[in-house]
């Protein structure tokens, strides 16, 4: 397996609010290997966005990475870096694409200038070299007439094209990690496919490792090598794409997969997970999903489940995997998946 370039250990992020401390990310651990795509899935508020912003040190000013957290990027401990050192990592080693391309570009600055900024800052090129590079990037992300486009403003671009520009900005300094925070959520479906293709294509060309945040499981299946499922600020299941899709173990993953519409289930109404995610001002004891889960055991309400190893790459945090746990029958949809996956 490829080299690990990023090791996140026990990452905890909290926000000070008027109501108290919101524990948005409650101790997550994962690795990222060179050139792979790791998808982080979970519903809104599960902490996936916050966790990845913490990797670049760009969480909101009332947020704080807690003491015992560790983010190791190529021998560098990100949590120990000061603002100056972080600025050298941002954009250069780790770059990010945001959710809404309509708002993520500065409306009063030309596209060209916005691409050049990072190049000038990190690569020490002069203006004309940076300009040349920026025009090449515009062409690379599949936009015609790059010379003319270079001088235009964001409002002269469509949503899909703006996202291409944001991708060009992200890739301008050949980062080692690209964080894509729901990059297709705000786009319409045909454009979504184009943007996904573009990211996959550029990844193949540059070998950048991608962390892909999404709540769209269809997208995950399309792009991810590995998948981490997040719930209430924790990773509940992590494994290769095939493992998570075809041999899901955590009841929350079951719920997610069961609530995905598919063309061949015509027999019943679309499943939805009952209830709503817990309030992270006062996170529940034990398994945070227990309150919404029909498979919850008594211990789920008392003690937090550790990660149980299923294979070398597949782990899930649910007491159901404990040797003394009663055997439960997952929903029919999941049983079907298990059967397809050859279990």
């Amino acid at each position, binding site marked *: 397996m490829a080299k690990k370039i990023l090791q996140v250990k026990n990452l905890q992020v909290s926000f000070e609010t008027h109501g108290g401390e919101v524990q948005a990310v409650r101790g997550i651990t994962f690795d990222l290997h060179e050139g792979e795509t790791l998808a982080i899935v979970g519903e809104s508020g599960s902490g996936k966005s916050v966790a990845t912003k913490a990797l670049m040190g760009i969480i909101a000013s009332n947020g704080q990475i807690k003491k015992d957290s560790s983010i190791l990027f190529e021998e560098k401990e990100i949590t120990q870096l000061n603002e100056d050192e972080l600025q050298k990592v941002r954009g250069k080693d780790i770059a990010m694409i945001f959710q809404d391309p309509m708002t993520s570009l500065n409306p*009063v600055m030309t596209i060209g200038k916005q691409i050049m900024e990072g190049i000038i800052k990190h690569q020490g090129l002069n203006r004309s070299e940076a300009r040349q590079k920026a025009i090449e990037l515009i062409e690379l992300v599949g936009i015609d007439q790059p010379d003319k486009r270079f001088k235009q403003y964001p409002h002269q671009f469509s949503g899909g094209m703006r996202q291409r520009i944001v991708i060009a900005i992200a890739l301008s300094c050949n980062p080692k990690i690209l964080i894509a925070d729901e990059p297709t959520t705000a786009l319409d479906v045909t454009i979504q496919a184009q943007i996904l293709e573009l990211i996959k294509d550029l990844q193949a060309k540059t070998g950048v490792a991608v962390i892909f945040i999404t709540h769209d499981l269809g997208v995950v299946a399309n792009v991810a090598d590995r998948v981490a499922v997040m719930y209430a600020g924790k990773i509940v299941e992590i494994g290769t794409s095939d493992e998570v899709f075809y041999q899901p173990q955590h009841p929350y993953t079951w719920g997610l997969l069961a609530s995905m519409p598919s063309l061949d289930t015509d027999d019943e109404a679309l499943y939805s997970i009952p209830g709503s995610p817990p309030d992270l001002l006062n996170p529940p004891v034990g398994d945070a999903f227990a309150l919404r889960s029909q498979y919850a055991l008594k211990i789920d309400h008392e003690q937090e489940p550790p990660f149980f190893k299923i294979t070398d790459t597949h782990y899930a945090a649910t007491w159901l995997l404990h040797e003394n746990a009663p055997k439960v029958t997952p929903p029919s949809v999941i049983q079907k998946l298990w059967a397809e996956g050859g279990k």
Partner: protein
Amino acid sequence: MIKYILERIMIGIVTMILIITINFFLLQLLPGSPFNSEKLTTEQIEMLNEAYGFNDPLPVQYVRYLSKIVQGDFGISIINTNIPVADLIYGKLPHTIKVGGLALLIGAVIGLFLGSVAALNRNSFWDYFTITVAILGVSIPGFVFGAVLQLFFGLKLDLVPIIYKIGDPRSFILPAVALAYPIIASTARYMRTELVEIFNSDYILLARAKGLTRRAVVYKHAIRNALIPVITVLGPATIVLIGGSTVIERIFGIPGIGNLMVDGINTRDHFVILGCAIFYSLLFIVILLIIDVIYGVIDPRIRVSGGMKN
């Protein structure tokens, strides 16, 4: 862009005609006349009314006034021994412009500065200071503030002259500050709100994610975007200046247009009142036009939709 400006000028002309018309007829409702002196006999008043054409039917007076304005004649001041109104305004203009211009400059610069500092250091001393300044600025009337300034800096500390003196730049300071204060307040509050909102926007996050310094993020990305809506307050600020100048010029004894208008109203000096009203309206329309052009310069979205090719 040219077409847009021409369009705005046309609209401005129509607006001016409406303003002149409304003011002309409103003035007829004003009780009293310029010839109120007890020394004048009824026959003398009758003769004066005849001489100035006040006995003609209103529509005739109106048409006569309009046709004179087209020729650049704004009538004469009845009280100031028949000096043309245009000459009067022209003579008073430098004083109003000096104090008003200084006030606008002080107001905009300090207001933008305080607003930015407050937004950059939220919940700090400077933030609360700015909020306090802003609240006081919009709630204390200009004449109170002007008088307090006179009392404190003029009388008690004896730093600056209390009364405006032609040729003494130090005497401009107090009236300019008194006029600027409400502008400081509104600009600072607006700038703070805008910047705070922009700091939470996605493109600021992207700028940070590029690894830019805080300085570059603030100056290159945030401030310029915040300025666009803040320029809008310059319009209301002009109104504040105009309204404030009538009061402040009186308190500080400035021989400006505000004072001229107040005197005109007190003595029912018809053409002076109309002349000042026309001057203020014209000033306001021109400033709004300038603001629109500035918008176009700093906001590319408006530039393009205004029809300018890039």
